[in-house]
């Protein structure tokens, strides 16, 4: 029965071998050693197989080169390797937005993004939002309007809001709600957050 399922793919690897090599559950844990350094065929063409890879990231304006495991998320690299603990691991599965960072200006959940995919790209975390001592208008607005309570979800919200206001400098209340619906605040401060976002928008237009 088992053998029947094994059908060779174009790349010479069975689907079953590949899945076995990946481990169960985790995303891209360990790949079969014989494949490392080779390429496998996918619908999008041939892609290289890594166990570990040296990547270069520009994080908050600073270029950094480091070797990462193929299954390491961008969040784990930021928090565990680069000591940037502002981005939070709350759900670790793309449900809460606590790990939101900017990747080339776009907001992404760092817990759902493999570090190797960020190779050569620019990452901004909450630690990079202020310019030196000068806070970003969104940060100022959060302090002024008390946009936080425990502060644990705040970095994710600040990154989501700063990305929103770059694209839409004058959002309506409904657009704000929509843009922030991927970020959970368990203390329940959304009603204060709306005011903070609107204050930030005014500040950014005035600046």
């Amino acid at each position, binding site marked *: 029965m088992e053998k029947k399922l094994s059908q060779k793919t174009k790349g010479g690897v069975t689907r079953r071998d590949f899945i076995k090599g990946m481990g169960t559950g985790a995303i891209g844990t360990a790949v079969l050693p014989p494949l490392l350094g080779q390429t496998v065929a996918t619908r999008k063409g041939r892609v290289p197989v890594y166990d570990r890879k040296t990547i270069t990231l520009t994080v908050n304006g600073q270029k950094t080169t480091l070797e990462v495991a193929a299954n390491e998320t961008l969040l784990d690299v930021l*928090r565990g390797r680069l000591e*940037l*603990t*502002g*981005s*939070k*691991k*709350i*759900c*670790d*599965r793309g*449900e*809460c937005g*606590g790990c939101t960072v900017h990747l080339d200006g776009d907001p992404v959940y760092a817990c759902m993004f493999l570090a190797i995919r960020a190779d050569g790209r620019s990452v901004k*975390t*909450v*630690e990079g*939002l*202020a310019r030196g001592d000068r*806070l970003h208008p969104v*940060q100022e607005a*959060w*302090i*002024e309007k*008390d946009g*936080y*309570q*425990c*502060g*644990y*979800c*705040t*970095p994710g919200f*600040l990154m989501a809001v700063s990305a929103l206001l770059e694209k839409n400098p004058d959002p309506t209340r409904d657009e*704000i*709600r*929509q843009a*922030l*619906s*991927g*970020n*959970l*605040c*368990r*203390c*329940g*401060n*959304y*009603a*204060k*957050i*709306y005011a903070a976002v609107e204050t930030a928008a005014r500040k950014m237009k005035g600046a």
Partner: protein
Amino acid sequence: MNIIGKAVNRVDGREIVTGRAKFTHDLTFPGMLVGKILRSPRAAAEIVSLDLAPALALPGVKAALKLKEGKVRYAGEQIAAVAAVDEATAEKALGLIKIEYKSMPFVVDWEKARASDAPAVREGKPNVEPLNDYARGDVEKGFAEADVVVERTYRTGFEIHHPTETHGSIALWEGEHLVVYDSTQNVHGVRDGLARALKHPAANVTVIKTYMGGGFGSKLGLNEYTVVAANLAKQAGRPVKIVLTRRENAMCVGYRPSTSQTYKVGAKKDGTLTALQMTNVASGGLGEGDDVTEPVADIYRCANCKTDEQTVFTNTCASRATRAPGHTQGDFGLEGVMDELAAALDMDPLELRRKNYSTKNRGDTGVPYSSKALDQCYDLGAKAIGWERRNKKPGGGAANGPWRRGLGMATSIWAGAGVPGTLADIVLYPDTSVEVVCGTQDIGTGTKTHMAVVAAECLGMAPADITVKEGSSDYPWAPLSGGSLTTPSVAPAVRDAGLKAAARLREVAAVRLKVGADDIVLAGRRFSSKSDPSKSAAYADVFRDLRRETVFHGERGGLPEGFAYNTFGAHFAEVEVNVETGQIRVLKYAAAHDSGQIVNRLTAESQVVGGVTQGLSAGIFEERVLDDATGNPVNANLRDYKIATALDIPEITTVFADRIDPRINNIGAKGLGEPPRIPSSAAIANAVFNAIGVHVGEIPMTPQRVLEALKRKEAAS
């Protein structure tokens, strides 16, 4: 008061918004290991054998512990633990532990656990036990006097705290001294608990909370995993960090217990209550459920009241205090039946409540409230929502396609007087810096800022001038941060120290200015003579005259006897209900509170907004679902366990009553943590009743339950 009661930005805001704030999850120490716990996948079993050797043999594993022998009673109970150099190794090691279970019968559904043939959850003890009872007057006499009697049942489900920062601790031994970093609401309590659990002197244990990402009652005491971290750290000779996963947070650190409350309420035609009777069946898994009598017995004037409560044990982890334990549930039932009674009497629900207003506790039969501005809350809230727009008859409003609109309200009562004996120090340094120190813990409510505000008020300075230290069991004693205790405990202690510090500074300034100390005023960072304004000295000079740092001890004084000390609130909601899909939208919300003197308007508003939001979320969405066949949760994540998002939350108007309690403490402050969480589910449920003409009777009010309620209404008409 110059600063107290104004809107003051948080003193730690900059650290939070720049990501520099370090939470327990964010901390690392040299040589630190990662600890992981093996948990039972079975709801009841006997451990036949447990072998840690294969885990210990894995390279990178530095310590392992057996945590359980004999019987396992719930899915998620801790069995064993390992500490390893990284998370992946620790997880792999857990998988190598050899364990053999013998399954036993179990029951996780509290209704099934009541059956006579249900498996015994706790050996030799019944699954159902008495929880609480209360009686005054004679309810039978009261029902005989009633013109109208209403009988209804209200149910509340299991709600999980799910703080964004999951539970976690880091333990490190410095020789014989144990230092624990813990995401906790109670540094002193965890310190004492650890000392007991480890049989180690409390003086040799320090518990530190840095920033912490929410608790809502689930982090009020010592946790099993904290003891595990300390023991693993001892065995390995290295610091150990244990951080629970989101799934663990759904399985083993508590939840709000369920209730099923049946009311029988009697009233005269004019709305005067004659009898109030309630029975409750609560369930808190392996722990007791919440008793809900307090609001029922207290809020409304009624001579005859009787309650009887039971708790049902099941094979699930023990429940824990959840923001306003007992009150959110009791308020949902009591305020639901008050609205259904108002409908039966054809009366304005707010008028029914005013009709039965009390000025003494225990339904106007006990001691007088020291202060009660609930009447003011009714006026302020009704005005803010536009109460006159409600449907005079529930369900009597105009239809807008499938949507029906309605307004509802609910009242709350809670304690919140604070704890006499709370301590705080103020330290004045000769360089004019000022430190305020208290072993309380800011859990996101703004306690640090409160401490700075009160100290600054006393010393004629600005909050930003004050250095705040909290969150360590080495600091002066303060109670746990829960029960709405913190502000009315800590703020008066700080004020006591601040007044002493200001008096000392006036004495020192008086010597320098050669006037009497009574003649000195502090303002604008100067000390001046009232009688001779030409005489004044700069802060810098007077502080320098202190010559060394000087500590002033403050204490929160006692509560005068003969009074009841309570907080009050009234919430008003406007909703829209889709009678075809059962969807509920909250359109507008107003919350009015009597919490005495507000210390910081800005953070007080956040407390209210948060309480309303959590009540909305629990009222409409949140419910832990267990698999009956395995006893495991089926929604142990933040996608399937539904929490309100920005899409669900309306504009929330916050108003505060301005009547200040004259004797509760030296500031007149009452607590505010719980009060806004209490009536919000009830107010929304009552608004839904006003919209569709039938009370859903159960939270969360899922679309299915709304549609079932509409079917009941149709069947009855």
